């Protein structure tokens, strides 16, 4: 297994609507990553595209349409797609392209253009359900997150106030992110008074749909020397999927996240995640999910995440800075392109390039993505 390093990252603005086409967004993100790594497209020998439902961009076999913007023309180019988990699974695919020895320098581009689905991506979300068991009930996607949040709150007796703290933290952190779509100084009361969508989920508990793209470049250890003296090494990767039947499991603890995390930690030689990890970017499309995923990532005991948040442990200057980027809640949620605030953020943090968002002396970081019908998770551990 060749040792693999991240040597450059890039991302576009996250916005409810962007003028750029999907291809153009991919180019902007890829060009930023190449510029940061000081490379040209000719230095890249394979390209991986990560993009979530075709139903958002409104193009069947979307990977084929994006390929020239990703720099894939006349190159080995492949798209991987695991729902919301694509944001970290695509970089993991980039990792095995290089670690396997098949490729020396691999560029991973993630893209999502949800604004093409008009007037609201909600109509694309209407088709993620089982056609026989669930679509006849005409469900709204928020229902299942409300049901998971409700169960999580009930088992651990966690209040809405505790959960709202996450939204306040992340939307505040996002004020320091140039791409932020919904950065704002808000209070817990703002969250509790916001419009109820599907109890217990309210408007400010949720991240917005966005357009955006992100890019990350991986290189093999023997190629890193001339390129950069500040590589960030991929130390652990893990991914796991649970049964399709989300109605057949207890939703209070994400078992599949724990399995993906254990896989990554075993590979990275991490035995006490809370102590050994300096910065974490769990997937936070909803505020309760950051807590749910901190527990899934074994960063704390079940039900303890809310307490840590209340004690400020997850602040940028806390013992375990969590979502210093501002996450999906603050910067935006372009599904696959959330790689920009997860994998790319951890790279920038560990390379000391996070500017105003920089966490002091961070050496080991973990990023995580989550998706499908509350059943998929991908985890990557990096170390500088």
């Amino acid at each position, binding site marked *: 297994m060749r040792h693999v390093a991240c040597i450059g990252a890039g991302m576009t603005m996250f*916005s409810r609507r962007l003028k750029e086409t999907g291809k153009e967004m991919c180019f902007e993100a890829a060009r930023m990553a190449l510029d940061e790594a000081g490379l040209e497209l000719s230095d890249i020998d394979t390209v991986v595209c990560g993009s979530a439902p075709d139903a958002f961009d409104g193009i069947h076999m979307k990977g084929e349409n994006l390929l020239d913007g990703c720099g894939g023309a006349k190159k080995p180019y492949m798209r991987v797609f695991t729902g919301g988990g694509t944001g970290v699974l695509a970089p993991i695919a980039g990792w095995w392209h290089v670690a396997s020895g098949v490729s020396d320098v691999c560029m991973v581009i993630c893209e999502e253009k949800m604004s093409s689905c008009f007037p609201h991506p909600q109509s694309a979300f209407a088709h993620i359900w089982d056609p026989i068991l669930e679509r006849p009930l005409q469900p709204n996607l928020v229902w299942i997150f409300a049901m998971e949040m409700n169960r999580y709150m009930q088992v651990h007796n966690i209040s809405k106030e505790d959960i709202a703290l996450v939204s306040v933290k992340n939307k505040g952190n996002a004020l320091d992110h140039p791409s932020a779509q919904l950065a704002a100084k808000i209070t817990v009361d703002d969250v509790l008074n916001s419009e109820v969508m599907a109890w217990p989920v309210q408007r400010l508990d949720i991240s917005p749909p966005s357009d955006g793209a992100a890019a990350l470049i991986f290189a093999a250890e023997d190629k890193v020397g001339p390129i950069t003296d500040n590589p960030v090494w991929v130390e652990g990767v893990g991914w796991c999927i649970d049964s399709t039947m989300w109605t057949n499991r207890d939703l209070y603890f994400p078992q599949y996240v724990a399995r993906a995390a254990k896989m990554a930690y075993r590979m990275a030689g991490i035995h006490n995640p809370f102590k050994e990890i300096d910065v974490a970017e769990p997937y936070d499309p909803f505020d309760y999910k950051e807590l749910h995923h901190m527990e899934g990532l074994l960063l704390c005991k079940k039900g303890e995440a809310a307490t840590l948040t209340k004690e400020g442990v997850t602040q940028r200057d806390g013992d375990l800075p969590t979502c210093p980027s501002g996450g999906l809640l603050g910067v935006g949620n372009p599904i696959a392109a959330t790689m920009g605030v997860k994998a790319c953020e951890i790279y920038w943090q560990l390379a000391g390039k996070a500017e105003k968002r920089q966490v002091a002396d961070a050496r080991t970081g973990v990023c995580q993505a989550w998706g499908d019908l509350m059943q998929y998770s991908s985890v990557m551990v990096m170390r500088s």
Partner: protein
Amino acid sequence: MKKFAGERLSSEEMKEVTHEEWAPAVKYAWSCGEAMSRFLNELKKGKLIGRKCHKCKRVIFPPKMFCEFCFRPTDEWVYLPDTGTVMTYSLSYLDKDARRIEEPILVGVIAIDGASEHMGIMHYFSEMDPDDLDFGLKVKAVWKPEKEREGSVTDIKYFKPLEGEK
């Protein structure tokens, strides 16, 4: 190329810039196959049916012709009562087109009695005070009249609290 590039558009500008509109014809007739065909035909008769795996002893509902834990064919059909327990729930103030509604839609996951732990389906609740909707509530299916049933999960109108519960 500047960093964090991108030109934001407001919803009005979206239609001012040159653009294309399209609504694809994408229609399906999914083959329900063995398990779902039987499941739907039984719903039409007002019955719930599951499959049992003799190796792990689980009664799987909704039914599958294979057990995903043991990766082997499931062994027998098992009829199940139309009562169950609320595993989780939500009160939705958005209808299917994400428009706000005053009266919430009560929806949740019901673990069906007789099936293994947690084996449930999502469905509506009604004929009850929303405040009574809680974890562990015992509920019973309310069916459409037989002649209106067509073999669909909507042959069950909703679940309501079991008598004597509330």
